[in-house]
């Protein structure tokens, strides 16, 4: 059932650049020691501007995107999952985490060299051993965050580890005391970094990294905001390949520049020219939580019905920072144009800004998340919602059943499908497609 195209479409021009940034990120991490640099590991939400103050040759690997990368490589993922299970870790734990641990246990990195070119393992590269980080720099809001790296440290015979507790309550109840608690931890963290690396800390590099962070998170939100347009210039499957840069290194200049100077202008241009992501767009939906990474084809399946998934609170707010504008709508958070004069002041501004992250709010109340989802459903003009009851991530699935009830109460049809972001053994593609068929019928497209 291929529907007739209503709108023109074209490939993203910045696609290749996005892919290169991602590949270089992993290559830099793998090769850091060859160049005398440092490697560190931490979550996608960690305050990554902090280690940036150690020098320009300090390269991270962020846990969740790396876990997703393994998930995309089904063969390696299965090997990793089974290796973690053999060590005694239950299979209902975070599936990113189990992929990540498995990569350490099997000593197989998801990347390697093929004809001297750095490529993913599934493209035929001979996998490298897992490059051990020099230190761990993590944050903690989900029960699994700090514990994830406790186990990493166990598996790697001890790696110096510092974790920042950022679970200080919802953004609308922020106080000076809450911000300071996080700031003081960051200051302790800087001392820890100096001690374990033997390097002097450079505040100027920190200031630059925080500014990059502001740009990355705000410009990404601005890009997502543009998807309010009909037709939507971006579809969610493409969004996954773009938002990931923010999860890799949101305080990195290459990411901030890409979002501000490449992606945003291109999407603005697409809107001006009426370029659609899905040329036969007839209905619009959003999803929630991470997708089942080895089955992204379900998003292409939606297109057969003329259905575009415009994104989700997950893709918009995992990295993107938002605020309510004067007209009452949701838009990109204004970048704080402040000059940094001291470490304390810069850290305070950084924390105050970051604690507004939309995807941190539901850790305190699923109802805050419901409100944001309903807002997206209304402002992005959606016909329905597809909720991924994700067995692989308790942190983002918390409260999802209440989100469903709230969306239904607000008048939006909801389809749920059970799966797992990174453990393909827990996703039933045929059953999900059958549910999509029925859901599309209820939305009036079949």
């Amino acid at each position, binding site marked *: 059932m291929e529907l007739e195209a209503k709108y023109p479409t074209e490939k993203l021009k910045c696609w290749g650049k996005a892919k290169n940034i991602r590949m270089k990120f992993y290559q830099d991490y793998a090769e850091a020691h060859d160049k005398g640099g440092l490697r560190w590991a931490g979550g996608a939400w960690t305050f990554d501007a902090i280690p940036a103050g150690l020098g320009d040759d300090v390269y991270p690997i962020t846990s969740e995107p790396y876990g997703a990368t393994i998930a995309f490589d089904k063969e390696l993922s299965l090997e990793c999952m089974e290796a973690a299970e053999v*060590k*005694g*870790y*239950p299979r*209902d*734990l*975070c599936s990113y985490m189990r992929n990540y641990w498995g990569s350490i246990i099997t000593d197989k990195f998801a990347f390697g060299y093929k004809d001297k070119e750095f490529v993913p393992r599934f493209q035929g590269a001979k996998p490298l051993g897992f490059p051990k980080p020099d230190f761990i720099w993590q944050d*903690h*809001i*989900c*029960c*699994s965050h*700090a*514990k*994830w790296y*406790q*186990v990493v440290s*166990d598996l790697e015979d001890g790696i110096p*580890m*510092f*974790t*920042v*507790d950022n*679970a*200080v*309550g919802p953004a609308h109840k922020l*106080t000076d*005391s*809450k911000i*300071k*608690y996080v700031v*003081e*931890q960051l200051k*302790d963290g800087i001392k820890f970094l100096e001690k374990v690396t033997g390097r002097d800390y450079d505040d100027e590099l920190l200031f630059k990294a925080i500014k990059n962070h502001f740009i990355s998170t705000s410009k990404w939100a601005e890009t997502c905001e543009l998807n309010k347009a009909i037709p939507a210039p971006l579809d969610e499957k493409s969004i996954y390949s773009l938002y990931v840069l923010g999860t890799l290194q949101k305080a990195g200049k290459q990411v901030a520049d890409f979002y501000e100077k490449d992606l945003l202008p291109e999407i603005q241009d697409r809107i001006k020219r009426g370029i659609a992501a899905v040329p036969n767009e007839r209905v619009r939906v959003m999803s929630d939580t991470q997708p089942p990474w080895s089955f992204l084809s379900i998003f292409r399946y939606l297109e057969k019905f003329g259905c575009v998934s415009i994104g989700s609170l997950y893709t918009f707010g995992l990295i993107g920072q938002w605020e309510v504008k004067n007209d009452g709508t949701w838009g990109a958070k204004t970048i704080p144009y402040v000059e940094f004069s001291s470490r304390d002041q810069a850290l305070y501004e950084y924390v105050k800004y970051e604690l507004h992250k939309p995807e941190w709010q539901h*850790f*305190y*109340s*699923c*109802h805050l998340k419901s409100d944001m989802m309903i807002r997206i459903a209304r402002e992005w003009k959606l016909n329905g919602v597809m909720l991924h*009851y994700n*067995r692989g991530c*308790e*942190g983002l*699935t*918390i*409260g*999802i*059943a*209440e989100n*469903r*009830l709230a969306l239904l109460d607000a008048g939006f049809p909801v389809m749920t499908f059970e799966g797992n972001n990174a453990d393909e053994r827990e996703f039933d593609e045929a059953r999900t497609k059958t549910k999509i068929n029925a859901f599309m019928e209820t939305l009036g497209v079949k």
Partner: protein
Amino acid sequence: MIEQFKQWEKNRHDYAKQWKGKTGGKVMGYFCTYVPEEILYAAGVLPVRILGSHEPQDVTEPHIFAMFCPFCRDCLAQGLKNRYKYIDGIMIAQSCLHIRQAYTSWIKHIPVEFEKFLCMPHKVQSPHAYEFLIEEYRVFKKEVEEWTGKKITDKDLDNAIKVYNENRRLMRKLYDLRKSDNPSITGEEVMEVVMAMQMTDKAEHNKELKKLLTKLEKHKSDREVGSRLIILGSEDDDTVFMKMVESSGATFVIDDHCTGSRYFWNEVEQGKDLLAAIAARYIDRIPCPTKDWEERKRIPHILNLCKEWNVDGAIIMQQKFCDPHELDFVAIKKALNDTGIPTLFLEFDVTVPIGQFKIRVEAFLEMIGEEDLF
């Protein structure tokens, strides 16, 4: 000997209703042992821990995705079934994500006068956690005062601390009795006492506890002790399981879970600033795994319990899908095995398959007793 405690535990709702009738005070339902009960008690509020009923249920299906622990769903079910209609307030202190959902669903679907998500810090190993928590307590104290219309004085707080500390000391005394070669009380009986402790007025519990301790000092148990076990892991109030194990040739002499020793192990150390003293108690207490990082401080504590209570084996239980405990048990199992303590891992649900568990427990006990046999 423990009839009164059992009665309180089995008739928890009647107890709370009668308490309300008698005192005219308010009752606060709470979900996690990180709730600073002393502040509530000082305001004349009865804190009552919400626990499940171990009955199969389906009322929570629309509210909590089934991959979250059965305990949080069982707790919410009690609210949805209107069993806690008498509570005036509901609160949680930030702990695991699972039980948090029971709280968030509760406040929406079973509204009460007062609700509170208390932002208990996760990084209890940070020196900055104290100051942060004290400020959270200051705000909470004010909110409780506004809710109850009662000013909480230092005298009130001091009295609450004294009552709670006495309760903790008496419980430690009870637990110490279990160090004996022939403990005068079983693990199942102790579980009834600890559970009753979480749903009654501590002053009343203290009186009954003193009577129990006097009786136990003279009491000589004639039951076979068998293997001396520790039970540790997630929330556990499954008395049926305890009874089954203890009728299979074993005695639980110690535990480490939040419905057991972790609830009362540490006292508030009196200081000038009473809120600071309470905050220090909750930060320095034996941690829940959600807060036990970067260093795993619970492991040396568990090993010490095993040593002091002369433990032969450990049953590691966890609520199904309980991520925080799942993230610790591999390290705990290794630490126990390294010190020569055999372990049995069991996954609990709202109801446990007693028959199947009995076979596994018997095999485990047989393995522990092997050295004596040959």
